[in-house]
């Protein structure tokens, strides 16, 4: 049984806004990245999972339990970091975390303390005066302190500085390694491709594609960009018959697509030629999705 299962989920807000016919499953221990532009339906999907909104049609399940009807029961197993951080009308972070612990019926705050230390979070600060990053961290602590099996993160790193983001992501990855099931939405490909097992792309309320990061990282062929010092060598190379993905005659540049096991052939051929530089063009998620979208639009 999949931990999270979304079946034909539709939430129609009218004017083509909302999510339409979403199908998605997340296995236990899997971390899924959920990527899409603003307003593409990421938050709506997560809210459906939390049972905050009632789907127009279709269902979503957590541990086999329907989300809308069993929202409070499911919530026991979910740690949720909302996209928009707003705390209850309390004074300090401590007070808020204590209150949350009470909601969760937690006996000790040890785990929370451990996390605050790791995140270098000063919980005695006034909630209202907290910076965006501090708020984000506090929210993460609040979501994780109950040690839930499932973690739903709605654009958790938005507004964080790069250093903070690293610390933040480390903590999430740590949870992932503990075997937690994680769904993280983001509008940044880099972030998800680094840590997620799989990534789903959502656009205008539709799931465009779901890819495994393994497939992206371990592609059978790679692209290399080569620049030659002179025109003669460039022309010679072009005549060799490599699969050129992009040619820029003006700069004596060419991008070739080489199968992994043919990489030595390339180097052998390049031996007699004067190469200015050679670099691998990584196949990123962004590129992958760009290609998918290109196909889709055509």
């Amino acid at each position, binding site marked *: 049984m999949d931990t999270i299962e979304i079946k034909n989920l539709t939430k129609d807000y009218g004017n083509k806004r909302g999510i339409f016919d979403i199908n998605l499953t997340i296995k236990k221990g899997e971390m899924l990245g959920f990527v899409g532009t603003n307003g593409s339906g990421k938050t709506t999907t997560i809210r459906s999972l*939390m049972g905050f909104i009632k789907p127009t049609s279709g269902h979503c399940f957590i541990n086999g339990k329907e989300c809308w009807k069993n*929202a409070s029961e499911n919530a026991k197993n979910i740690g949720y970091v909302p996209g928009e951080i707003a705390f209850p009308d309390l004074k300090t972070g401590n007070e808020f975390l204590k209150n949350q612990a009470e*909601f969760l019926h937690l006996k000790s705050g040890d785990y929370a303390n451990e996390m605050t230390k790791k995140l270098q979070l000063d919980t005695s600060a006034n909630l209202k005066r907290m910076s965006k990053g501090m708020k984000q961290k506090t929210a993460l602590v609040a979501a994780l302190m109950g040690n839930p099996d499932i973690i739903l993160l709605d654009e958790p790193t938005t507004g964080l500085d790069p250093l903070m983001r690293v610390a933040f992501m480390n903590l999430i990855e740590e949870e992932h390694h503990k075997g937690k099931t994680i769904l993280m939405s983001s509008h940044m490909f880099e972030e998800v491709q680094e840590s997620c097992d799989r990534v789903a792309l959502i656009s205008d309320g539709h799931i465009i594609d779901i890819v495994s990061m393994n497939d992206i990282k371990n592609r059978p062929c790679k692209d290399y960009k080569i620049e030659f010092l002179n025109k003669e060598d460039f022309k010679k190379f072009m005549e060799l018959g490599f699969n050129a993905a992009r040619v820029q005659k003006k700069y004596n540049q060419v991008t070739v697509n080489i199968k992994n096991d043919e990489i030595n052939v390339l180097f052998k051929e390049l031996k007699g030629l004067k190469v200015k530089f050679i670099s691998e063009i990584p196949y990123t998620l962004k590129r992958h999705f760009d290609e998918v979208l290109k196909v889709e639009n055509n």
Partner: protein
Amino acid sequence: MFSKALFKQSCKANGLMWLIITIMECFMLACVMCISGSGNIGSTKNTFENTIITGEIDSAIEKRSITYYAYATDGLKTFDEDFKNYYIQDVTDSTIYSAKVDAWLGAKPVLTDYSDQETYLAAISTWQNSFPTYEKESEKIYAYYYNEWLKAAPDSTKFTDQQTYLAAVNAWMAQKPQPSSTSATSAYSSAVTSLETHIEEEMLKVDSTYTKDSDEVKEVKGDVFYALNPMHNFDSFFTDNNEEIPADYDVTNIVLHISSNDVDTYLSSDERYNYISDRCSNSSSIFIAQNLTTESSINAIMDSLSEYGITRDLYDSFGYTYSNLKHTANLTIASYQAQYDYELTNINKNYADGKYATVDEYKEAISKANDEIITNLSSSLIASLPEEISNALEEVGKLDLYSLVVGTIFYKMAGLLLPIIYMIMVSNNLIAGQVDSGSMAYVLSTSTKRKTVTFTQASYSILSLLGMFICTTITSCICLANVHLTSSSLDYPRLLLMNLGAFLVLFALSGLNFLTSCTFDRSKRSMSIGGGLSMFALVATMLGLFGTDVIPQVIRLTALDYFNYASIITLFDVSSIVDMSTTFIWKFAILFAFGLVCYIAGSIIFKKKDLPL
């Protein structure tokens, strides 16, 4: 169902606001109750009210004085007339009778006519038994006096010489009862009896349910007979009140004028009229003063004035003492006499000029003039004003200003403002505010059910309002215990009901705001609709107040009453609480039901709706 953590969170979030509002509310209440209870507020109204009330009492006294005086003069005139008639009849009767008696006395057996002592005694006995029989009162009285006179006859054996005996006999003969003098006595007693009957008949004309023993009949009889004071029977009435005992009622002049054959002229003369007037005005004013200072009549007056909030102390301070009352009565009667004389002279003049076709018309004119004088003299302050103004003044007099200020002005309006502001803010903070900001997510992501959220938040809302009104209840009770009220019906049960009413209003309105808070995701919308409606209700009540009957008619704007139909606060019926009628109970029930329905509806809506968290 109930989340302690959420409740605690709500307390922490709204506790300070609750405290500030509650302290301000209680302070305001204490100020209103203590300042308006210190007497400043009611003094103008009290002076006003007392003027009206003393005016009313004065008018009652004046009316009564004239009535008593009228009864007394009428009674004495009747007496004079009856006496005259009886006297003339009695003189005739007793003269005939006295002739019979004289004949009987002349027929007394003489000893020398009889042979022996025995037959003489038998003859004397027969003679004595043949005393002329009497039937009429006048004959009886004559016979009585005659017998008394006979018994007093001088005994010849007791005299030593003939000369002194004859002198004694002459003196005795001069004492012989004359029909003219015994008739005066009999006519007097007959006239007294018929006067009593006359009064009973007169009173029956006033009200056919009166009997001989009715209090009213006895009262009028007392009034008339005190004026007459026959045989000094009622001397104690005058002595008890430290008044001079009037001289015997004069009939001698009537007898004299009968013998001089001008009795009718005499009886209708000014001389006789003035005599009767003086006597009646004296006794009537004593009678009314004595009558109104007895404990039982003061109690009766207090009963009828209690609705104006008049206490015994206050009444005593008005100064209705015996001497003041007598003085008032005397003055009223004197001015009545003067005005009546004047009117009568005019009417008589007109009659002489032939302006009245018949005697009946003439009499009617007299009685009309009489009524007018009585109305003018005894008209109260209120009666002498146009009806609308007098109604309004009476209302002001009856106005329970303290209950109005505390109940209507404070609990129904001014005092509601702060709790309503608190309630609007809190209702919004509890649900819509948290949904709008998104902080509700932290509550709902901790396996807290939505039902639990609404139940806990509704509990907080209701309990905090309840706590607030428990504070105002305590404050108001302390204040009421410390102010000394003279004329207000406000007491602890009423005060508790007012606090309860204000709480129920807040309960109903908070239900409405809770409903909007549960319905809308945006604070501003929830606040503007729920809070707007609540404020509208309050403002409508304020405007509507000027159209309700708690506001005296003079400054009432009836058109504004329509606002009361547009406001739920109208169901807080302060007037009904002040009057202790039962209307407020079902209105309270509606308020409670309204609030409850709103809270439940809000919970259901919140449970079913999509949350943007």
